[in-house]
């Protein structure tokens, strides 16, 4: 069972203290729609959270002269170039090549016109008098870029979204930013359901859904008949996931339920056809040494997996044996070599040893044994 630190819960609730969305009913998170209409207990507190609008979707209400934007761009480029000299003695450094690319994306997200008016100013015979429309004020852009570099705020939180597979997902503090490796979970599911239509017929579950990334990815590969339930303990994650589901108009296919792991799924024991999860798997001792962007900004609830990092994974293994119907598929993301092997060993030796077949370890593109997959007997 995952340990929940009361202090962390409090933090996420505090950061969630936003105006009630009852004032704008259109924006109400759609998480409690469709599927099995009523059954599970649905705490009402998360209704109070309104997800932030990512930069690229904001209204372009800030007319700014081009020359001022160029000035900001020069400043931001210089700041990005200077990071390496200033942090040479530390291992956890920013990479200016990547920062320059992020700066380009920040511009793409904040400007309505062609970003080239900023990036390729030398070819523009303009003296900079012209106004361009921005989605954030120039002051905010200065502030955002400073946060990125000085505070090491993850770029995805800075712009409020993460491009993941072919999706653009809203993310904000309190929700884990989906990782590129995790895209492969959806690839695996896609391959499976293409090979065997049976897996499209029943319900899938994504536990600890965070931004809703995996659930949305899977719903899209399942096609119109797909059903996915996404759960999370964090009210912020619930609100953000619900918002992302709504943005992709998948309310009819994905139901977001709040609660710890299998608790919100009591009505579905033995009924799931697929179970996926990217649970917290970092060993507690590694948490203090994490990369600044992760350690300082991302929710520990989504990262800390206990002493070995396997607390949640073991819990998921047991849940999988209970929740999956015979033939059902599961895939879990793990911390890599050691942990994936531990999980497979555990499933083959413990009281679960007669529950699964075809247990496999699948590596990510970096060659790390990242995933454990298998089928319920």
């Amino acid at each position, binding site marked *: 069972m995952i340990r929940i630190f009361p202090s962390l819960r409090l933090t996420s609730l505090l950061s969630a203290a936003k105006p009630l969305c009852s004032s704008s009913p259109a924006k109400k998170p759609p998480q409690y729609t469709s599927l099995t209409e009523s059954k599970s207990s649905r705490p009402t507190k998360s209704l109070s959270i309104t997800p932030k609008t990512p930069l690229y979707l904001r209204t372009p209400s800030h007319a700014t002269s081009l020359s001022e934007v160029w000035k900001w761009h020069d400043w931001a480029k210089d700041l990005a170039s200077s990071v390496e000299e200033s942090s040479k003695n530390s291992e956890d450094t920013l*990479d200016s*090549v*990547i920062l320059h*690319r*992020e700066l380009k*994306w920040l511009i793409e997200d904040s400007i309505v016109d062609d970003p*080239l008016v900023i990036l*390729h100013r030398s*070819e523009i015979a303009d003296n900079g008098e012209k106004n361009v429309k921005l989605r954030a004020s120039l002051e905010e852009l200065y502030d955002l870029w400073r946060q990125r570099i000085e505070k090491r705020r*993850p*770029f*995805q939180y800075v712009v409020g979204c993460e*491009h*993941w*597979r*072919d*999706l653009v997902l809203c993310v904000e503090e309190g929700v*884990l*930013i989906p*990782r*590129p*490796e995790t*895209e492969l979970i959806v690839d695996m599911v896609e391959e499976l359901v293409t090979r065997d239509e049976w897996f499209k017929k029943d319900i899938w579950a994504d536990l600890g859904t965070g931004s809703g990334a995996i659930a949305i990815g899977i719903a899209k590969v399942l096609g119109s008949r797909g059903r996915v339930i996404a759960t999370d303990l964090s009210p912020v994650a619930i609100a953000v996931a619900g918002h992302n589901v709504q943005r992709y108009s998948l309310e009819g296919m994905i139901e977001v339920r709040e609660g710890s792991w299998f608790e919100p799924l009591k009505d579905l024991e033995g009924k799931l056809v697929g179970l996926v999860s*990217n649970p*917290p*798997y*970092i060993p507690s001792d*590694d948490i203090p040494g*994490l*990369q600044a*962007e*992760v350690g300082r900004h*991302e929710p520990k609830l*989504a*990262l800390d997996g206990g002493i070995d990092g396997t607390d949640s994974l073991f819990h998921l293994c047991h849940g999988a044996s209970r929740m999956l119907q015979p033939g059902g598929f599961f895939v879990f*993301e*793990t*911390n*890599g070599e050691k942990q994936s092997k531990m999980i497979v060993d555990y499933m083959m030796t413990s009281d679960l040893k007669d529950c699964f077949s075809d247990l496999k370890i699948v590596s*990510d*593109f*970096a*060659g*790390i044994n*990242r995933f454990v997959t298998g089928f319920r007997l």
Partner: protein
Amino acid sequence: MLSLIIRRSRSRFIIHGIKISCNSLSAVDSSSSVLVSRRTFSSTPALSYFGFNYGKISNLNQRFGNYAYSGSSFASSTRSLSSEAVAVAATCDGLTVERIIANQWPILDENEGDWKSHAAAIAQSIQVIKRRLQWKKLLVRLKVLSAELNKSDLWDDPTHAGKISREHGSLTGKMKGVMTFERELLEHIDMLKLAKEENDSELESETLKALIDMRRVSKEKELEALLSADNDPCSCYIEVQAGAGGTESNDWAAMVMEMYKTWAQRRKFSVTVVDEAPGEIAGIKRATIKVNGEYAYGYAKAEVGVHRLVRISPFDSGKRRHTSFAAVAVIPILGDGSTRVEINDSDLRIERFRSGGAGGQHANTTDSAVRIVHIPTGITATCQNERSQHSNKASAMAVLQSRLDQLEMARQTAMNAQHTQSLTEISWGNQIRTYVLHPYRMVKDLRTNYEVSDPDSVLEGDLDGFILSFLSSSLDKDDPEH
């Protein structure tokens, strides 16, 4: 033939009630009659007149042979009017494009020229177009294709049949375009002479205007004819690779890449960076851009080869002169209609481009570049500029697909090897252009001798002069009669 004239002429023609008789004349094989002096490319960037200057007419004996293709004896028409105005036209043989050229009428400026000047200019264009289309080969090919199409078992192999009929359609279209243009010219001349005889000044000025319009259009058609190869209309990738020599040559590679980016933007092509490996201190080691737009490949293919820079290096504290090299490759992105190489998933190895570290939840990075290796050929592709790994992978796959397509094309058509080389195959000896910034300033193309004394404008993307001169000269070279 009579009906042709009447149908195509204005009603005025008939009202005049002139008796018309026609002679069926063959169009003339024009590719043999003009020698192009290649050294005459002017260095002015004016695009529409990219420096063709027809000096000598080598073949004064016009050949009035029959056309190589069957059944469509093209007819020019003249009237058997007793006309003392123009001696050549007075005969029943009439005036042909070839004769117009043989007449060597001076070609004057558009504004001051008389009709002869216009006619001569248009006739010249027609010859240029025919040469660029490789007219003779085209007609022979058409004959072969027609024969093929008439075979009763053609559709037993639908893929092959489709290919044949597509090619036939495309070549017929090109052929008819030129023939129509040619006919129009001769009809306008007829009309003009008629107007003169009738003292119909209104008709005369109208026709003259039509000739001037044709003259303008003919320049565009010349250009179109330059880009008539199969894959010319495709979009493409442009790749630049720095030669040995560290920072100076990395900087040069970046300058070359910048040159193409601005060139493409000027041409209204859209440009996206697919892959970029920055140099340690400045510049790039290698980069790939995708250039999207009609005829991007047709133009860009002229840039394949090694580009050499001579300058005093800003990176050399001793202020010495350095020579550096950058290799350029251009890969067409084939359209849906073309046959593409099939790639087996099992032949691919996909790797995280910058791996290292624990990854997963430990790492937050926006860098999700992947490298795809096609194991049987060893060809790789990388993309790092997309915002998700999924998209990086898709872009890298597209590059890989195009590289494999190109490899296959190169295998199939070893003849056109100069256009289908991929970066790995470019020998560093294959120098195509030199850019000298010191001790004098000049850019010179070693293939065409086209040169420009203002390197800055070239490096800012003013490349069309080089590209068009190369394309036209390479088509001359391809033509066995030149």
